[in-house]
């Protein structure tokens, strides 16, 4: 039962953190709660759909279909998070000022919303389809402890969701003036982590070379399956034994998005 809790917790953690962070990042935008819920619901529905056809997907591209699918989902999510950050870089200050002046009143932010709804849906889809497969495996097995496993899975989901609520609760305490700077950095690190995972799956499919692998090994002092390692993995793509290619993609994405944000910031908001 504990194993089931841990598995579902791990799978739901990243999605919950993404939702918690973008919920804080879009706080002053009118009606954003519904949009976030829509993104999450679309992700859950998509997870079930993907899990249903995942067996067929995995047989594509010479048995590497799963990796290609994950890579596409990750690339789109990175693009959406980057888009959100770039948009916020040009509108964030104005938005913060407006929110402060009007005492938390709501402003329009259609572009940022489109980006985050899609990013949420994609993240939930990626992590969720694995969870669905795990749960289907439990349900179809003749396990005597089936109900205990189901309870364990629910606990894992609750714990993952709880982590999302915690980070949201922490972020809403940040003064609105600084909030967008903090969420901007958090979203930047999420995007970079996903870019690193993008490289990892394509190395696994033998599309990209690993180059030096591992580039470093921090597994003895910060194992990836430790509590802090798990959190750092979900928040910023921490990997104890990454390949050089993965690290290269991580920092290239980080640098490119940062440069685009800086450029957007210097231009006056349209």
């Amino acid at each position, binding site marked *: 039962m504990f194993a089931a809790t841990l598995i579902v917790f791990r799978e739901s953690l990243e999605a919950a953190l993404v939702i918690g962070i973008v919920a804080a990042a879009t706080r002053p935008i009118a009606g954003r709660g519904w949009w976030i819920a829509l993104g999450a619901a679309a992700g859950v529905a998509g997870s079930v759909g993907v899990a249903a056809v995942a*067996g067929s997907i995995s047989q594509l591209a010479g048995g590497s279909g799963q990796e290609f699918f994950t890579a596409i989902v990750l690339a789109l999510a990175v693009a959406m998070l980057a888009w959100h950050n770039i948009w916020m870089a040009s509108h964030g200050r104005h938005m913060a000022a407006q929110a402060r002046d009007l005492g938390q009143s709501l402003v329009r932010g259609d572009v940022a919303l489109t980006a985050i709804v899609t990013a949420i849906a994609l993240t939930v889809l990626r992590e969720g389809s*694995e969870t669905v*497969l795990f749960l289907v495996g439990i349900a179809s097995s003749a396990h005597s402890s089936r109900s205990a496993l189901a309870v364990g899975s629910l606990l894992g989901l609750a714990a993952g969701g709880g982590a999302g609520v915690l980070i949201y609760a922490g972020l809403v305490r940040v003064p609105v003036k600084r909030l967008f700077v903090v969420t901007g950095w958090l979203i930047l690190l999420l995007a970079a982590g996903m870019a690193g995972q993008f490289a990892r799956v394509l190395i696994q499919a033998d599309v990209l070379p690993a180059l030096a692998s591992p580039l470093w090994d921090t597994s003895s002092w910060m194992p990836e399956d430790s509590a802090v390692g798990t959190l750092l993995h979900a928040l910023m793509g921490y990997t104890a034994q990454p390949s050089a290619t993965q690290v290269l993609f991580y920092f290239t994405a980080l640098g490119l998005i940062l440069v685009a944000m800086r450029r957007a910031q210097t231009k006056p908001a349209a």
Partner: protein
Amino acid sequence: MLASLPGVTYAADPEFTIQLREHRFTPSEIKVPAGTKVKLVIDNQDSTPEEFDSFALNREKIVFANSKAIVFIGPLKPGRYEFIGEFNQESAKGAVVAE
């Protein structure tokens, strides 16, 4: 289209198969050459899906019920690299030994 991408040709890489039956890997320890890319085939003969998972190898892949999955690993330095089947980790344990 994907199949015609330049990287997706595996002909030259040494290939090793690990069977998964009743949530156990056979062989549970597999010797592979160090310093070269290796193609691992995980042959799941169980009627439930499994997730091949290894922090040491930096790999993670769902292996569907009654099907095979391919995971490329390495080039590895000589050493022992443990892996698990995440969905049944009490029994599904194994290691790749590169030498």
